[in-house]
């Protein structure tokens, strides 16, 4: 009987160790994929920004001032330090305009080879630019444009390819390496946080990066599921064996077996708890990404205050397709944009990023909103990729004291005057973007009250199951009219009061407030 009990304990120990090992590998794969999705998601936004810059240059025959104005906000993070505009056919002449530091790309050598690969609808990725402060460069040109322009950006890499470990990161318990291309040769290492290469348990994920790829390798710093699961197989083994030898009876064997089973059940509970943590973490990553794809700062005009909020719904495990933007134009005008791409996840986010940057480019080249929306209609096709988007444009003209509203199937904006009256600015709706490539749009212009507030939002704020949309719109109208505090407070109150429930959609809301 002692032998049987020992056997059972040994079997439990082995099973437990196997389960632990499998669980750790699974967790590592999950975490590596999550990190890869961060990498993957950062790329479309970068590509969209360069694409809109190239498009603007093509449309304005290389207008340098407009290029600078469009691209300057892209340098706000540390991930890009140089963006330049080049003539695709004449790289030897050097850049026409540089924002940030001078590019390291050799006009005579590297540029011509790199630009020859641009213009195929994805980023042309250059090799590593040399020490002492290495960089990686990538270029974009609009496909099919002869004599067009190339937008080119460079991202700095740490000199020793070692990044400082950030303890606040969601991946603080993992070591990582990122290689350029599909191979993990030392020469291809872009960045890592410990001396390469990683040893022990590793997981590798490859993500496309323009016409090249990035290879992400991760390995755990310790146990991913916490220290208790790591120790549990040994606790079961050692503790169980001692007990079995001390009291080798049938009854005790049964107790021991049950205890082993209970401990395994506990292990499963630990794994389930870990899953819940991962869920929360994935949600955090989705929100981080979402914010990275939205404007970091909103432009301001004298006498015009602006504020925005983005709130992920309970479905917010993935990035949503809602966005907002506020674009400063010439002559004291602002273009407010709110949009919503159908679906979720990376595809929706990619479409959202390209629409957002396309609107910026069209607006920068002087297109009015109805023309912008018609041009957007050619970028998305529900028949080809199953996506459509609703977009609302409100052009705010400070001097003319007027608002021009244009909508592609989006909910109308709410206008509050100083007296506390609130009404929706209805406008004949055109089709959502993606339904018809030849869609046409009309604008409606209304005078602005001397002091007032404009709110534009996405459907998550007003849609509730089991009621009509009109009830939701009326609830928002009354809540906004009853509020008399600051603009940021108003948005927070509306989001908190109106956007709740277990399966609500994401919500974006932007407010503009002007005085006299």
């Amino acid at each position, binding site marked *: 009987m002692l032998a049987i009990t020992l056997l059972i304990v040994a079997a439990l120990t082995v099973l437990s160790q196997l389960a632990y090992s499998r669980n750790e590998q699974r967790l590592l794969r999950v975490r590596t994929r999550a990190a890869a999705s961060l990498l993957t998601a950062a790329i479309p936004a970068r590509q969209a920004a360069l694409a809109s810059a190239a498009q603007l240059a093509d449309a304005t025959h290389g207008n340098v001032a407009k290029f600078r104005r469009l691209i300057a906000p892209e340098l706000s993070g540390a991930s890009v330090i140089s963006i330049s505009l080049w003539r695709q056919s004449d790289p030897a002449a050097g850049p026409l305009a540089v924002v940030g530091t001078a590019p390291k790309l050799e006009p005579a050598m590297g540029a011509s080879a790199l630009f020859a690969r641009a213009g195929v609808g994805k980023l042309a990725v250059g090799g590593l630019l040399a020490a002492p402060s290495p960089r990686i460069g990538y270029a974009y040109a609009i496909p099919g444009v002869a004599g067009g322009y190339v937008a080119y950006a460079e991202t700095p890499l740490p000199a020793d390819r070692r990044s400082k470990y950030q303890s606040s990161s969601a991946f603080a318990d993992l070591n990582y390496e990122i290689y350029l291309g599909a191979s993990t040769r030392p020469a291809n290492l872009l960045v890592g946080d410990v001396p390469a290469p990683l040893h022990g348990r590793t997981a590798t994920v490859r993500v496309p990066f323009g016409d090249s790829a990035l290879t992400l390798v991760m390995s755990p710093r310790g146990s991913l599921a916490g220290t208790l699961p790591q120790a549990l197989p040994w606790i079961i083994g050692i503790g169980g064996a001692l007990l079995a030898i001390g009291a080798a009876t049938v009854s005790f064997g049964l107790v021991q077996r049950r205890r082993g089973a209970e401990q395994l059940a506990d292990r499963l509970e630990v794994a389930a708890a870990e899953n819940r943590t991962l869920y929360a973490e994935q949600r955090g990553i989705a929100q981080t990404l979402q914010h990275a794809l939205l404007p970091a700062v909103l432009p301001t005009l004298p006498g015009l205050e602006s504020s925005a909020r983005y709130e992920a719904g309970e*479905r917010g495990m993935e990035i949503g397709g809602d966005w907002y933007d506020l674009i400063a134009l010439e002559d004291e005008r602002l273009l407010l944009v709110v949009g*919503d791409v*159908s*679906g*979720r*996840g990376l595809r*929706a986010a990619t479409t959202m990023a390209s629409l957002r940057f396309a609107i910026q480019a069209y607006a920068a080249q002087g297109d009015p909103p109805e023309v912008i929306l018609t041009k957007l209609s050619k970028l998305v096709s*529900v*028949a080809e990729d*199953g*996506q*459509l988007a*609703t977009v609302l444009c409100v052009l705010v003209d400070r001097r003319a004291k007027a608002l021009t509203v244009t909508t592609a*199937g*989006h*909910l109308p904006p709410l206008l509050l005057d100083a007296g506390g009256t609130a009404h929706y600015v209805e406008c004949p*709706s*055109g*089709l*959502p973007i*993606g*339904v018809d490539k030849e869609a046409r749009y009309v604008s409606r212009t209304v005078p602005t009250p001397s002091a007032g507030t404009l709110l534009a939002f996405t*459907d998550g704020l007003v*849609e*509730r*199951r*089991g*009621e*009509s*949309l*009109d009830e939701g719109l009326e609830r928002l109208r009354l809540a906004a009219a009853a509020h008399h505090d600051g603009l940021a407070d108003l948005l927070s109150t509306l989001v908190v009061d109106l956007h709740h429930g277990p*399966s609500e*959609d994401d919500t974006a809301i932007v407010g503009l407030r002007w005085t006299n």
Partner: protein
Amino acid sequence: MTFNVATDEHGGVVIAIAGELDIESAIVLQDGVAAVLAGRPKRLTVDLAGLRFADSSGIALWVRWAGMVGELHLRNASPLLRRVITTMGLSDRLGLM
């Protein structure tokens, strides 16, 4: 989300959708009816009586179908969905009944 494909007395196709339609279930639904739509039916009726919830992925799906069949009709849409489709300017294109 569950769905059911049938034909009506005039030889048109009826797709009845029940439950909740979001991005994941929209993909399942699209795959499930691909063969039916490949036959380019002259008339497609989409019955939403059992549909508790649909997000814009569902609407995108129906717009896609509208381009693949002779005529499309949406019937038994909830008040919320009706208003959303009307706001999007899609009630004619989707044959909202």
